[in-house]
């Protein structure tokens, strides 16, 4: 009887520890996602300025600029799910990349201090976003491991923990936003 009680107590203690560690992992994912959100918002704030500054030079790329503005508007709406936010981030990153590539065709922009400054800020924010995405993906991987591995998978199942969407990280991102190539190739 005593042995049985000891086993029960040990099981309960382990159960509590596993439950707490799972909650910790879930909260970590949520916390980091909140920070990702904050940094993404910083980027949204820069977009109207960027669009306004390059609009008058870029006659042929109105379509990309409109798309960027639209994506920003969509992303700024409330009530988006995490998956939607992640998907919008990827689209916005790609659209901004297109602007950067298009910028190369406009030497006048090289001289525009405002555009240069905006590009610099954007570049810095891209670095931060990339770091935030990596931190988020790592915390999601930790959570997924706990959901899948024995014995935490049993508790995770009871708790109804769900899989999260990972950010897809484009390793070429950094080079694409590299302002050096755009403005310093005199």
């Amino acid at each position: 009887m005593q042995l049985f009680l000891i086993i029960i107590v040990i099981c309960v203690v382990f159960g509590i520890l596993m439950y707490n560690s799972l909650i910790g992992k879930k909260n970590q994912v949520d916390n980091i996602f909140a920070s990702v959100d904050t940094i993404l918002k910083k980027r949204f704030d820069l977009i109207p300025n960027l669009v306004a500054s390059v609009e008058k030079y870029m006659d042929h790329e109105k379509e990309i600029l409109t798309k960027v503005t639209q994506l920003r508007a969509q992303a700024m709406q409330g009530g988006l799910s995490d998956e939607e936010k992640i998907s919008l981030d990827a689209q916005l990153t790609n659209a901004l990349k297109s602007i950067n590539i298009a910028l190369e065709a406009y030497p006048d922009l090289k001289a525009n201090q405002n555009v240069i400054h905006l590009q610099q800020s954007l570049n810095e924010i891209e670095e931060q976003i990339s770091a935030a995405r990596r931190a988020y993906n790592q915390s999601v991987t930790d959570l997924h491991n706990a959901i899948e591995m024995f014995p935490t998978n049993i508790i995770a199942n009871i708790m109804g923990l769900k899989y999260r969407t990972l950010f897809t990280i484009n390793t070429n991102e950094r080079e694409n936003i590299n302002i050096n190539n755009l403005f310093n190739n005199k």
Partner: protein
Amino acid sequence: MKSTSELTDFYYSELYPTILELEKKRKTILSKIKVHGFAGLVIFIVLALMIIKNFGAHSLFFILVIITMAIVSLYYNFLTSGYNKEFKELIISPIINAINQNLEYDQEFFVSQYIFERSDLFTHSIDKYSGNDHVRGAIDGVDIEFSNIHAQYKTRDSKGREHYQTLFRGIFFIAKFNKNFKSKIIVLPDIAQRTLGNLLGGWLQANNFSRDKMIKMDNPEFEKQFVVYGSDPIETNYILSHSIMQRILDFQKKISYPIFISFVNNYIHIAVDTKKDLFAPNIFKSLLDFNQTADYINSIRNVILLVEELKLNEKLWRKI
């Protein structure tokens, strides 16, 4: 930055007269060491035999060994200290200048204890702090500073005797980092995981109470070699970008000593645990020996090259 072969040329051409002069001194000291060492050995054996024959006491013999060791080490230091000093003044100092003219070298000075403790690489309290061979200056616009450091702490044995244990002995390097950050990031050699395995070692690392939270990085090789502690996972990923992790790994491959890195107050601190002084000459090896020369030059170059290796000179936009 001059290449190793350029520096070797410089060593054998411009420094050659000085080297010959110093080599003569080295040979004189070495022959003294040999003659006096032999004489000392004879005296030691005679004394030891006398003690064993007359007293047969092991404790007395033990005391003799300790006294002999102390005398040998004192006498050795006495013989070589002048040579060490001249070697640093006449050989090391010009090499550092040849590597980069903006660097200042001081034999006696060393990185302050405040900076060493600020790095937070070693959490133990320090009771004795010393160093030498201080180099300071700007490379490609990056302010750097490094020196040998020997940090020790006091322990007491069961008989209440005090002993000094080495906490760190090696090169301590600091440079302004090219990204702004607020949190503290510590990168340590992954000894626990390597020796105790993934499960136990990993658990011990994750539960290191003297450190911030352990942060897993998304570079498997880096994870295997190092353990990272930080207060902010996003900022840790921001500082330890894929490229800097790769550069740290490359640097670690190049040198065989364990490296400790921290990012605090917008500075990067790197401690290389060489367990010896960086620029101390080896009295038993000729100054004309090519391998030995390459060794001296490379050990200086490797540290100064850190700026280029870690691309600390690459300015990011925010720092402009």
